[in-house]
């Protein structure tokens, strides 16, 4: 309720920086990972666009259940950790070779995030083959102002990056037949 005038602003900046290590706000976080696959973009896209195929190429996924059709499609992934991710499909764009989906549940055992919306795109690579990019916009698990260390922004980005990297490596292995 009190106004801080200019000299105090400096103090407030210092205070908020010292707090930043443990208390980020509800700021969406980015993950952006790429991999190059030695296969034609159309062949890679055929696998990526199939929303239920992730069970056959993501090494963390032990079980998958796909339900519904069209924009009502969801997939329930059971991970090695025992955690569950429920994704709902938003868009499949054959022209842009892009698939978009988002998380519908929260499960700390699966990933320390409260939500994500992801996009995977396939593009021709410069030297032949395909570039696959997997991007994520996500929020940490505890969106309050003082999250515990395993539920803060860093934990959310770290775990999501590992999940996405493992997925891209698995996709490459599957498509390249290795």
């Amino acid at each position, binding site marked *: 309720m009190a*106004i801080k005038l200019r000299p105090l602003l400096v103090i*407030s*900046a210092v205070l908020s920086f010292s707090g930043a290590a443990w208390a980020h706000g509800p700021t*969406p976080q980015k993950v952006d990972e790429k991999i190059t696959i030695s296969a034609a973009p159309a062949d890679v896209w055929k696998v990526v666009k199939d929303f239920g195929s992730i069970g056959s190429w993501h090494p963390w996924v032990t079980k998958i259940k796909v339900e519904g059709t069209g924009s009502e499609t969801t997939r329930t992934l059971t991970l090695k950790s025992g955690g569950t991710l429920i994704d709902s499909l938003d868009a499949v764009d054959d022209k842009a070779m892009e698939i978009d989906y988002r998380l519908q549940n929260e499960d700390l055992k699966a990933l320390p995030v409260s939500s994500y919306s992801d996009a995977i795109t396939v593009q021709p690579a410069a030297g032949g083959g395909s570039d696959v990019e997997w991007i994520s916009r996500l929020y940490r698990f505890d*969106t309050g102002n003082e999250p515990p260390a395993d539920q803060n922004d860093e934990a959310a980005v770290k775990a999501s990056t590992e999940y996405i990297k493992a997925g891209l490596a698995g996709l490459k292995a599957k498509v390249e037949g290795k």
Partner: protein
Amino acid sequence: MRARLPVAALLSAIAIALQGVMAMAPLQNIYVLSQDDGILSVIDTTSDEIAAKIAIPGKPAAFTIDAKSRKAFATLPDDGEIAVVDLDRRAVLSTLKVGGQPFGISSDTAGRLFVGDWSANRISVIDEKTGATEATLIVGRAPAHLVATRDGSRLFVADRESNNVAVIDTKKLKILAEIPVGRAPFALALSPGGKYLAVANVQTANLSIVDTTSLRIVSTPATGAMPYGVAVTHDNSEILVSNQHGGTVSILDARTYAPHAQIKVGRYPEGVAVLNDGRKAYVANWFSNTVSVLDLAGNVEIKKIKCPSGPRMVLAGPVEH
């Protein structure tokens, strides 16, 4: 002498006409708030270049502009504060300590701020000069963006987790209605005359068009996937919606709600704003760290302006004095 009179009359008529044109559409800046870098960028809309970057300490999520006091007010959810920015000096003047997790913010012409607290499900009415809280009101879960009518008599709040829009009488401090909309309403835009409100429902991928007199939904036009930003042109002819998935802006006819065009922009577009003259719109591409400039005559993207990291909200506002 006789010949001169018409010329003088003509010249003064031209001068009056020019004044008229300028009064109708004064030059505007576009202001872009980047959350990750904590910067309010000022875009000169003649050159479409960033003319200034105003540092805001912290991670500002949303802002409003009071054209009368020529200030911007940016919420800092981490710090429970609102940064007050002087648009002429292009500097932060002070911070208002409001506590909690301030997110959505709107202002009226009487110098009041309306601020939503995301985790406390509360709206506060704050005096923009003193920072004093005049009143608080509990609304639905996770108030996202909110918008006040120009005179501040009515306030509309998108309660994201309750899937409704709260309509508040700010004089009686009473919730007049909680209108069920689609799933996860986030962004709102009031038509320039205030006759209707456009609500972007993120998870149902549509708009709820609310008649602000009857408080009924008159239409629910479809958008692209994950609509996160919405704006109405100053002449009330078109509604612009940013679709986070697919990275597009949909342009709808504001009378029929039929889609006119879909323009590819950057990745994860969020805030969208239109200049009062209706010629150009600006879209914050959150993932790409760019602002797309759209030409609304041809419905094409004419430029991408690189900007500080995490742009989420854009507003048209006054040029500096």
